[in-house]
């Protein structure tokens, strides 16, 4: 059984007991425990089940690399799945549940998948795609549905109770990792005067050194860490942070760090997570190394653990995973575990050392403590289901025969160490294979490069390959100085602190235990514990032709678990390399991608949630609109009233009322969102002639002209009315959504093509409120307010003038998007609301009603006016819409002119705009396609047109629509069919798109 030891536990405070829950059972731990150490102290070794076979899973590691011990943490608005028990600090009241099982952790129906293992081989997901549909429906889908998903998604109606934030930071040197290497590198860099930021993912400093022992400058590692921390804290140019993981390294020294502020004190004030967005001149990766598992049969049974993790649990948390332990290793370091356990009073039955030569000084120390060491031996198989019961021991050099069985309840395994090269690799740092240590380490000749072409990441300590304490500290000193130097500082060269640890003999790579294990053993030797990928799966993939490591990863799902292959990576590569008969460096690694370990979605979002997710643009009339029944519609970042709904009225009733009233009495439209761009300068006319398809340079001051804008590809991108202010000034109106885009479009051509033309562009959209006064009574209300002469003689249709209406300084444009008598009146934005309210008040006797965007759409559709985004979709040219009249034939050039001469653009089979009138007066479905004769190459009905705008017109009391139809203008009167998604066939007659006041008399009075 796993239990708390009477002594040991450097990180726990035995005077502070903590109560927590796991699967509803109340348990006790101490302050300083992780959830994993506390569960083990309560003899809860099994913490979850695997993804595919639902096999029992116990904790295997002690840190961020843990693949198995994933739990659902918290409740309600603070529930979160897939949290690693090994990195979850225990707190009072913590609740956790295990995952991937039904009905419970101890008894799981899905574990039957294990029995079906031969039906779920490598590449299962790929292979099943080639089967016919019935197989899918009746065989695969029920199985997959049951096993799919890791953990439980939080309830979709529940909102995260916590807050998150982003934090921008700049550093000369960012040091990632607070082990002894990180501390020393930070110190060395800081001595140059460089601004240093040091981050450590756990809540404590010093990394592995205090557990692994040795001395630094004659001090115990713990004491040296304390001393160095004190120095760093007293250094002004150093910032240090615990619980902050260096998550990713990106282009040009950009880095993300993920700070977990209140995970250990839920509900405490302030943000839960903080995402540090860092720009560093240099980044030191002192990220340490991760121990590799050994691949032997049954290495996934709860109770089998990394040797270093077992040592951590004993030394840091005073917990032992078992009472009778066997250590399996191919290196000297694992003897430290045997020694630690023995000294803590745990029975260490023997060390199984795959090396025939056995170990060095540490092995001697183990023997002197009375521990039996078996060189040249291997674990053939672990027996036990939910817990290790015994092991079968054989020779390493063999197929696994002649076994000796030994009863035990925990196994510590060590296959050597792999430097954590993730951050080095994120932005292109390359690796080299170190034969002696059997691992990939950073290639100093090929670092990730910054903007200046020089490397900006410096690996330090175990992350760079060195193993012994002395080498680690010397490397860290060098790295810290190098980083400071590269960041433009002059390092004070100093001797590294002297680290002393036992001399270790070389390891011997062991990729399979025993070396020639037979098939039944290989089928039980796990590489990826979470995703259930075994040695046999990778070998199968190789036999099936998967030579690329990236393909094999996806085919077998090796390394695709939430630990992202931290444990399985190298063993998997080695297995693949052996199966392919190649060397490991030739096979290479899969790509390391950020984040190093998963970070919360909340931290990525930061403050951007709810109301501040995206600021809303508001017109000066917004609050009035809101108070007067506005049914809001998002238009770009604006909110515009779709309609003004009165009490007791439906939205569509409101729209119909507004549409009729604008034609019969007086409508007001808040048109402030329309883009307003001033183009000014001696060459402004010439410039606008390039921007618009029609001529703008010959527009007279005081006059307005409707204009079309095309991209250089010929496609229509915007439209609007242009007014000439004076000799060298034009005001261009754009669509609501187009203001910023068109302003940018003009700037681009002005700056990058015609930069020698004397012209300037300014976007003044928000400087003005603009109100359309529409309807037969429009002039009456303006005359009542008094001021400028608004007669047709003074300001005729398509004219404009500056003046006063009442007390308001204004600019009045006689333009109409409704076909009615219409004045669009611009006032300074600050006067917008007052002017609007004055119009509402004065308009009462004339039947004034504000109208929204839907009424605007219907009014323009009744008149056959096109709308950018309805009639256009980025593939439409003005000629398609019958707008040839707005394309100048006199101009030699304008944007889009040449493109519109291309053969496809002049094809007479391009669909053209027509009006559509349903035979029965109903409303055509939006976007419906017209069906033609015959079928296309895919056996689908040919289509001959589509609906672009469709509305119910209250004024005409029938459905009206516009659409693009093959040879449409030549087919007036013809009835075509639109099959609806509702199964009905809608019949519509092709008609002129102008449904109302064809002569245009009403706007011109």
């Amino acid at each position: 059984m796993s239990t708390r030891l009477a002594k040991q536990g450097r990180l726990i405070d035995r005077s502070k007991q903590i109560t927590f829950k796991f699967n509803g059972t109340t348990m006790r731990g101490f302050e300083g425990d992780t959830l994993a150490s506390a569960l083990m102290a309560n003899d809860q070794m099994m913490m979850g089940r695997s993804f595919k076979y639902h096999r029992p899973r116990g904790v295997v590691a002690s840190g961020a690399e843990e693949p198995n011990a994933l739990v659902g943490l918290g409740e309600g608005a603070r529930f979160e799945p897939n949290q690693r028990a090994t990195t979850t600090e225990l707190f009072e009241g913590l609740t956790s549940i295990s995952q991937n099982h039904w009905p419970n952790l101890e008894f799981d129906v899905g574990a039957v998948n294990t029995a079906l293992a031969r039906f779920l081989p490598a590449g299962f997901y790929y292979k099943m795609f080639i089967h016919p549909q019935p197989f899918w429906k009746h065989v695969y889908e029920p199985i997959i549905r049951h096993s799919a998903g890791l953990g439980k998604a939080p309830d979709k109606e529940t909102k995260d109770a916590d807050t998150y934030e982003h934090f921008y930071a700049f550093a000369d040197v960012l040091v990632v990792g607070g082990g002894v290497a990180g501390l020393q590198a930070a110190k060395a860099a800081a001595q140059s005067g460089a601004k240093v930021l040091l981050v450590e993912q756990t809540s404590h400093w010093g990394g592995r050194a205090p557990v692994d022992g040795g001395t630094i400058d004659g001090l115990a590692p713990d004491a040296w860490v304390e001393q160095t921390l004190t120095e760093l804290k007293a250094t002004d140019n150093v910032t240090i942070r615990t619980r902050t993981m260096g998550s990713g390294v990106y282009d040009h020294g950009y880095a993300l760090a993920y700070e977990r502020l209140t995970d250990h004190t839920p509900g405490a004030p302030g943000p839960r997570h903080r995402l540090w967005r860092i720009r560093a001149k240099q980044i030191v990766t002192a990220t340490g190394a991760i121990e590799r598992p050994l691949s032997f049969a049954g290495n996934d049974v709860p109770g089998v653990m990394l040797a270093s993790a077992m040592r951590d649990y004993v030394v840091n948390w005073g917990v032992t995973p078992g009472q009778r332990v066997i250590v399996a290793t191919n290196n000297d370091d694992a003897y430290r575990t045997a020694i630690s356990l023995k000294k803590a009073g745990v029975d260490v039955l023997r060390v199984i050392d795959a090396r025939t030569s056995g170990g060095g000084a540490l092995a001697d120390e183990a023997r002197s403590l009375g521990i039996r060491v078996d060189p040249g031996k291997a674990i053939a198989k672990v027996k036990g289901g939910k817990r290790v019961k015994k092991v079968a021991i054989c020779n390493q050099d063999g197929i696994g025969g002649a076994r000796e069985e030994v009863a035990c309840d925990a196994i510590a395994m060590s296959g050597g160490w792999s430097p954590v090269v993730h951050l080095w690799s994120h932005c292109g740092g390359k690796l080299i294979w170190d034969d002696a240590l059997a691992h990939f380490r950073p290639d100093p000749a090929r670092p990730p490069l910054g903007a200046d072409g020089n490397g900006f990441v410096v690996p330090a300590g175990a992350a760079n390959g060195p193993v012994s304490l002395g080498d680690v500290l010397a490397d860290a000193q060098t790295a810290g100085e190098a980083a400071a130097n590269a960041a433009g500082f002059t390092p004070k060269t100093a001797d590294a602190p002297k680290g002393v640890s036992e001399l270790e003999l070389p390891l011997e790579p062991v990729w399979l235990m025993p070396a020639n294990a037979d098939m039944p053993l290989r089928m039980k030797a796990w590489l990826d514990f979470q995703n259930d990928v075994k040695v046999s799966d990778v070998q199968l993939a190789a036999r099936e032709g998967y030579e690329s490591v990236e393909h094999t990863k996806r085919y077998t799902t090796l390394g695709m678990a939430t630990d992202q292959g931290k444990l399985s990576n190298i063993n998997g590569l080695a297995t693949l390399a052996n199966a392919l008969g190649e060397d490991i460096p030739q096979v290479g690694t899969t790509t390391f991608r950020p984040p190093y370990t998963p970070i919360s979605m909340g931290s990525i979002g930061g403050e951007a949630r709810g109301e501040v997710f995206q600021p809303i643009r508001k017109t000066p009339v917004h609050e009035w609109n809101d108070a007067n029944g506005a049914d809001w519609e998002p238009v770009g970042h604006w909110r515009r009233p779709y309609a003004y709904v009165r009490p007791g009225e439906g939205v569509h009733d409101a729209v119909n009322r507004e549409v009729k009233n604008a034609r019969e009495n007086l409508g007001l439209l808040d048109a402030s969102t329309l883009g307003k761009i001033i183009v000014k300068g001696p060459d402004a006319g010439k410039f606008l002639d390039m921007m618009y398809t029609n001529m703008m340079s010959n527009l007279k001051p005081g006059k307005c002209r409707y204009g079309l804008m095309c991209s250089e590809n010929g496609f229509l991108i915007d439209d609007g009315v242009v007014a000439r202010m004076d000799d060298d000034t034009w005001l261009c109106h754009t669509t609501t959504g187009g203001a910023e885009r068109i302003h940018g479009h003009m700037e681009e051509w002005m700056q990058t093509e015609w930069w020698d033309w004397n012209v300037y562009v300014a976007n003044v959209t928000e400087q003005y409120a603009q109100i359309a006064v529409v309807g037969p009574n429009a002039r009456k209300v303006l005359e009542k307010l008094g001021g400028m002469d608004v007669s047709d003689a003074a300001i005729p249709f398509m004219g404009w003038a500056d003046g006063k209406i009442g007390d308001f300084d204004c600019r009045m444009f006689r333009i109409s998007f409704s076909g009615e008598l219409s004045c669009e009146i611009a006032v300074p934005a600050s006067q917008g609301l007052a002017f609007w309210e004055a119009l509402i008040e004065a308009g009462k006797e004339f039947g004034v009603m504000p109208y929204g965007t839907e009424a605007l759409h219907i009014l323009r559709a009744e008149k056959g006016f096109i709308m950018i985004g309805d009639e256009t979709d980025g593939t439409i040219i003005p000629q398609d819409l019958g707008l040839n009249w707005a394309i100048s034939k006199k101009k030699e050039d304008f944007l889009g002119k040449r493109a519109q001469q291309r053969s496809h653009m002049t094809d007479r089979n391009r669909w053209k705009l027509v009006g559509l009138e349903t035979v029965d007066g109903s409303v055509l479905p939006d976007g419906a396609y017209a069906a033609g004769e015959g079928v296309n190459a895919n056996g689908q009905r040919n289509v001959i047109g589509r609906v672009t705008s469709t509305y119910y017109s209250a004024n005409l009391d029938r459905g009206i629509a516009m659409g693009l139809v093959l040879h449409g203008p030549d087919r007036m009167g013809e009835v075509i069919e639109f099959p609806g998604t509702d199964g009905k066939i809608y019949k519509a007659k092709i008609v002129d798109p102008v449904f109302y006041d064809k002569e245009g008399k009403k706007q011109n009075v």
Partner: protein
Amino acid sequence: MLTLHCPYCGVNADETELDAGGEAHIKRHGPGSDDNQFHDYLFTRENPKGVHLERWRHAAGCGKWFHAARCTATLEVFGTYPAQVYEPPQDIKDAISAKRPGWSWREFE
């Protein structure tokens, strides 16, 4: 997340402040050009692994368009320069040559 120096306002701008504008030094072909010229102008672009000349706009800054000479493989930036030129200035060419002797890009080298 590149940083590029804006030659107008002098800011070392983070990529979040910048809009990418594709290839630089494209000669416009308008009315009168033949179909092939016009097609190449609209659609044919360089896609080098190595030296590239690009257009960028300091969109969330001073609003100016500028050009960057950059290595697409290593992300090294050789220099940035105003967009109002028909070819990279000599100092930019020299900076590229110093790091990538024998480079060429379209008609420039």
